[in-house]
Every structure is written in C-alpha cells, then in structure tokens.
C-alpha cells in the first residue's frame, strides 16, 4: 500500500518537475510546480508528518505559488523564447547536474542504511514542544527574517520619484 502510494506520487513529483522543465509558458511551469508540491505533501503524509503536509499545502501551494502566479500575471510574462545566451550552461552545467545526480544516487545507494521507515507518527504536541522550547530562539529570529523580507519588498517595489 505504502509502496504503491510512494510510486504514484513519487511519479507525480518527477513528472511535474519534468513538466516544469519542458513547459514554455511560466504559468504552466507554475502549475506543474504546484502539482509537485501537492504530491510532496502526500509523501509527507506517508512519512508520518501530517502537520508538515498541511503546512506544505497551505504555505507552498497556497501562499507562495499564488504569489508566483500573481507576479506572472502582473508582468504578463509570455512564452519564453529560446535565446542562446550561454553555451556554458549546456556545455558545462548539464553534465555537472548529471554528475551531481549520479554522485548523490551512488552515495545514497552505497550508503547501506536500508532502514525501513516504520510507521511512526509525530504528534503535533511534541512538535510544538520542541519548536517553542529547544528551537525558541530560531523561531523568534525568523521574525527578523520576515521583517527584513517585508522591508525589502517594500523598498524594492517602491517606484522612484
């Protein structure tokens, strides 16, 4: 059961990602990214992280992607044209990416930790305990982060006078 679900949604993820890669229109790419994220949420569920699954759907697919789509609309970005800006990107980058993938996969396989994922559910209570006790400071600090983000968005988006 678990296995099947993993394959289905894992497949969805990859398919979405590839679609993002091959779609020429940003909107389509955005939508396919949403697909990836939502199916990731399912995988989270499989891994027993309901809270994260929820957050994934709400924050990512909800907020962030909406923001993307909004901007795409705002700047009404059309189909991207295949300009030839850089040979290096292909000549160097793609092999690099491939090598990266290869290396990682090799490592994960030869890692040997075939620890099966037991079905163990994190209850949100414990989650919050850790979050608001051990990780209190980082949590508070993120507020600065967000503040900075807002500031920046305002400062940048503001028109010159």
């Amino acid at each position, binding site marked *: 059961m678990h296995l099947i679900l993993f394959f289905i949604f894992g497949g969805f993820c990859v398919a979405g990602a590839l679609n993002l890669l091959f779609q020429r229109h940003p909107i389509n790419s955005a939508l396919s990214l949403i697909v990836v994220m939502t199916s990731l949420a399912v995988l989270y569920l499989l891994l027993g992280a309901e809270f994260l699954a929820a957050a994934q759907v709400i924050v990512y697919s909800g907020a962030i992607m909406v923001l993307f789509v909004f901007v795409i609309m705002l700047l009404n970005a059309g189909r991207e044209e295949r300009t030839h800006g850089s040979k*290096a990107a292909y000549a160097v*980058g793609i*092999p690099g990416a491939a090598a990266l993938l290869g290396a990682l996969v090799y490592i994960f396989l030869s890692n040997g930790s075939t620890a099966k994922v037991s079905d163990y559910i994190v209850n949100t209570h414990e989650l919050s305990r850790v979050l608001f006790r051990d990780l209190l400071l980082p949590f508070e600090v993120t507020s600065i982060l967000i503040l900075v983000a807002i500031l920046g968005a305002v400062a940048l988006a503001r028109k010159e006078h």
Partner: protein
Amino acid sequence: MTSSLHLWLIPLIPFAGFLVNGLLGRKLPKALVSTIALVAAAVPFAQVVYTWFQLGGIPLPYVEHIGTWIQTGAFNAGIDFQLDHLTMVMLLVVTGVGFLIHVYSVGYMAHEEGYWRFFAYLNLFMFFMLVLVLAENFLLMFVGWEGVGLASYLLIGFYYLKNSAANAGKKAFVVNRIGDFGFLLAMFLMVFHFGTLSFSGVFSQVAQHPAWQGGFLSAIAIFLVLGATGKSAQIPLYVWLPDAMEGPTPVSALIHAATMVTAGVYMIARAHIIFDRSPLALTIVAIIGVATAFFAATIGVLQTDIKRVLAYSTISQLGYMFIACGVASYASGIFHLVTHAFFKALLFLAAGSVIHAIGGEQDMRVMGGLRRKLPVTFWTMTAAVFAISGWPPFAGFFSKDEILYQAFLSPNGGKALWAIGLITAFITAFYMFRLWYMTFFGENRGEDRQLEEHGAPVHARSDSTLVLEAEPDDHGHGEGIHESPWIMLIPLIILGILSVIGGWIGIPSAMGGHNAIAHFLDPLFGTPPAMVGALEGSNTLALTLAGVSFAVVILGWLCAHILYFAKPELPAKFAAKLHGLYTLVLNKYWVDEVYGAVFVAPLLAVSSYLLKGLVDTGIIGGATYGSAYLTSGIGAIAQRLQSGNIRSYAGWLALGAAAVLIAVYFGFGVHFH
C-alpha cells in the same frame, strides 16, 4: 738609518704645484703660474742633486716608510720610497730634463689659453713619474705607472677641441691600459706566490730559491713585459705613440721621448732578478726590442710630419733599450736611456722651436732652408742628430755601441740581434739626416703651399678658431720666420751640450774610458753575464764593432745626403719604382687599420648586435615582458568565464559542485573504514 733624506718631498712638491695651479691657476696671472710650476720642478731637481752628493754617507738601497696604504688580513702594501743607484740615475734624468722642459714650455706655451692647465698637468706628470721611480713596491710603482698614463692622456688631449687630439689621448690611455692589464696580472701572480709586492720581499725570496727557474717566474716576467710594451711603445702596443704627437711639443719631448716611455725599460731593469731567472722572457724582450727597433725605423723613413719622424725614432730607440735588457745587459739599457733622454728631448724641443718659428707647420715638405733663419735651433738640432745617429764622440754613439756590443757577445742569437741592430742604425742615420736636410737645407718650400700636399695638422688649420688655440702662430706669420725667444733656446743649448758630452759617462774601457755608469750600477745588476767571458782581449773586438757601426752610420748619412741634398728628385723615382713597398711603408704597414678591423670593430659589433640586441633586448627583455604578457593572457581566459549570463554562472556552479562532491567522496586523502 743615519740621516733622513725626506725622499717623500721629491714627488710631493710637484704635486703641490699641481694642486695650486690646478685649483687656482684659472685665476692667477701667467707669471705666477709659471713661477709656481718652475719652482715645483726645480726644487726636486735641487734635492736630487743634493742627495747625489749625500750618497757617500748612505747605505743603499735606502728605504723610507711613509705609511700603510692597503692592509687586509691577508695582504698589505705600504707607501714606501726607496733610493738606490738605478733610482738615482732615473731621478737625475727625470728631474733634470723635466726641469729644462718646464723652462722651455714657459716660452713655447706663452700664448696658449689654458696655460695654467698645461703646467698643472706637467707638474702632475712629474709627481707620478717620480713616484714611479721612487716606489719600493710594485703596487706603488703601479700608481706612478698609471699616473703618468693619466698625465699623458690629459696632455695629449690638451687641445681637446680637436677631435684628433682627444682621440689620441683616449687611444694612448686605453692602449696603456692593455699594458697595465699585464702589469696587474703580474702583480696578482706575485701576491699569489710571494704574498707581498715589496721589491725587497719579492727579490729576496727569489734570491733564496735558486731552484726557481722559468715556470711562474716566466709568467710574471712575460706579463711584466706586456706592461712594458704598453708603456714603452713596443710591438704590439706601440700604436699610441705616433698619435700622441697631437700633444704640445714640450709634452712630446718630456713624456713621449725622455721619461715616461722609458718607464718600461726601467721596470724591466728593476725586476731584472726575475728576468734573469727566465731566459724565455729575456728572449721575448730581445725579440720585441729588435723587431720594434727595425720596424719603427723603416716607418720613420717615409714620414713627412717632423714630430712623427721623431716619434718613430723614439720607438726605435726604445727598441734598442729592450735589446739591451733582452741580453741581460741592463746597465747599457739604462745608459742608452740616459743619453736618449738628452738627445731625443733636444730633438723634440728643437723641432718645437722650428714649428713655433714657422707658425705651427709640422710638415717637413714645406720647410727647408731654415738653417740661417734659426741658427741656435739649427746647431743644437745638429748636435742631436749626430748624437742619435751615433757619430763619435756624441752621446748616442757610446750607448748604442755598448748595446750592439753586448748583443753581439750575448750567447743566444746575439749575432742576429747585432746584425739587425746594425741595419737599424743605418736606417736611423738615414732618416735623421733626411729630417735634418729637409728642414734646414735647400730653399724654403714654405711659400708655395698647395693644400693637397699638406698633412693632417694642416687640415686642422682649415678651422681657424681651432688653430688659434691649437698652435701658437698668432705672430708666426706676422713678422715672418724668426728664432725662438731665449727662454726656449737656453734649454736647447744645455741639452745640446749634454748630447755631445752625455755619452762620456759610459766610454768603454776599450776606448780608454772606464764605463762609469756601468760601474755605478754594478751593485744593482752585477756584471752582465754576457761580459763575463768577454772582458779581456775583446778590446779589438769592441773597436772593430764600433768601427763597423760607425761606417754604417756614415753610409746612412751619405744616402740621405744624396737623396735629399744632392739630387732631391731621386726619392720620387724610387717611390715610383718600388711602389708597393713604398705605399706599404708610407701607410705604416696598415697596423692601425688591422688592429681596428681585428679588435675594435668586432668588439663593438658583438656588443651592439649580439649582446645588446640579442641577449639584453631579446632574451632578457623578452623573458620579462613575455612572462608579463603570458600572465595577463591567462588573466584574459580567467575573465572569459565572466560571460555575464546567469545561466552560465549557474552552469559553472553546478560543475564546481559536482567536482567538489566527487572529489570529497572518491577524493584524495585518507580513506575510511
């Protein structure tokens, strides 16, 4: 020591004169300048004479230690002066003749600008020359040695605005440097083998080791000879002396006839202990001497510039002295040195007086018939001519004869030396009388001057300003040809007398004299080895040889008389007949040209093309800039990565990432588990 002679004063006083005139002369009046100069030359002469009379009371050699000059852990050299018989003779000649020439110059240079400069240099020369003869070690001697070279450089280049003069000066100095190069190496060898350069030290060591024969002693001796050839204008380094005639005539008289050029002979005599151990070196000296004597004489035959004739005769006479040294008869060499100083100085001074009289002209072809116009000059000159060509009882006869006699007696190849010497004697007589006739007899050819006939100095006349400083003729043409002032004539007369009687100090026993100078020098040289076997019973031989040489001299005079007095048209005919030989000799065997082509030109060419062009600019410069360009070229490649395109940047990042990942993982370094 009994009583100090204060030898150090002898060189120091001329030096003082040099300083005063050199620094202040520009401002001082001529009278004062000349007084200072004369005093600075006279006092040493007086002191020398005084010392001469002291000789009895002083054990010779007498040494004065003034101070330490160079001192290092390994080696030291002092400022030491020494007096012995040889020095004594040299001192007398140098100061005596030197003083006379100073006197003469006062008249001769009277109208020169830079008068003060001239006398300053003259005193400087006296200083160095005296240091040279007084020195007690080779290093100090070398000071004088190079110093006189410097003085002659300055004096030859006295008319520095004339390119020829400046060139001659430079040539003299550089050629002398080649000689000094030999001297230096000889000194290095001595330091290496004896650890000292003082005469006493070196000679005593040589004396202590009779085993030392040839070997490094020959090396030292030969290097010394190289030095001597430079200073004494012998083959192969004689080339500078003829050009040196660019200097004022008194200079030629003092430096290039009487004193400096004899330094080489003096040095060989001084170092005779070393030479005695090296037959090889002696042979070389003899060969050089005889070759030079003959060679220079032949050139002298065709020269038309009066001073150049004298220059070549000087070279040739020095050759005689070398022959003497070469046959280890140093005393006779010194003897000839002395007499030669007298008559050659006289010849130059007289020539100077002639030149002075006819307004700076040096070309004999435009002289002639001056006999009546310049009586004193004529008579003194005559004395000198007879002396040099060796008429008895003039000075030259005895000294030259002594040399030929010694050569004849000397075991190794002496006969050949004697024969060539004899021929040279003939040539000498010939060209000296040629000069005599061309200058003083016939009618004056001075009026019909065509420029094409004129020699180099005449060309210089084309630039009038030059000549005004070059030669004192501002009054030359004014009231026609005239005798020189007395201040110039007195020295002529004195030297004239000396060149008549000067030789009597060395009349050989064969002719009823008792070779005074030889005996005087005996304590230094001992009896020349050649004499040993030949002392008694050889009177007849001596007389016959003398007779032969005298006959030869007369022959020479006859030829000259016929060619240049009786039948003046003949020389042209001969020239036409023996054209090849004539041009060869006329161009002095093209030696200068050959040297130029063989040494100077290649050196300059190599320097400018190979060294400067190829090595310095090409290789070294190229390496510098090449590497610079290379680096910045690589820099350009490094920049190329910056295409400015985000995606390519990301590409590099990705590649780098992959590389790092793989490197770390499969990577170098320690392996785990």
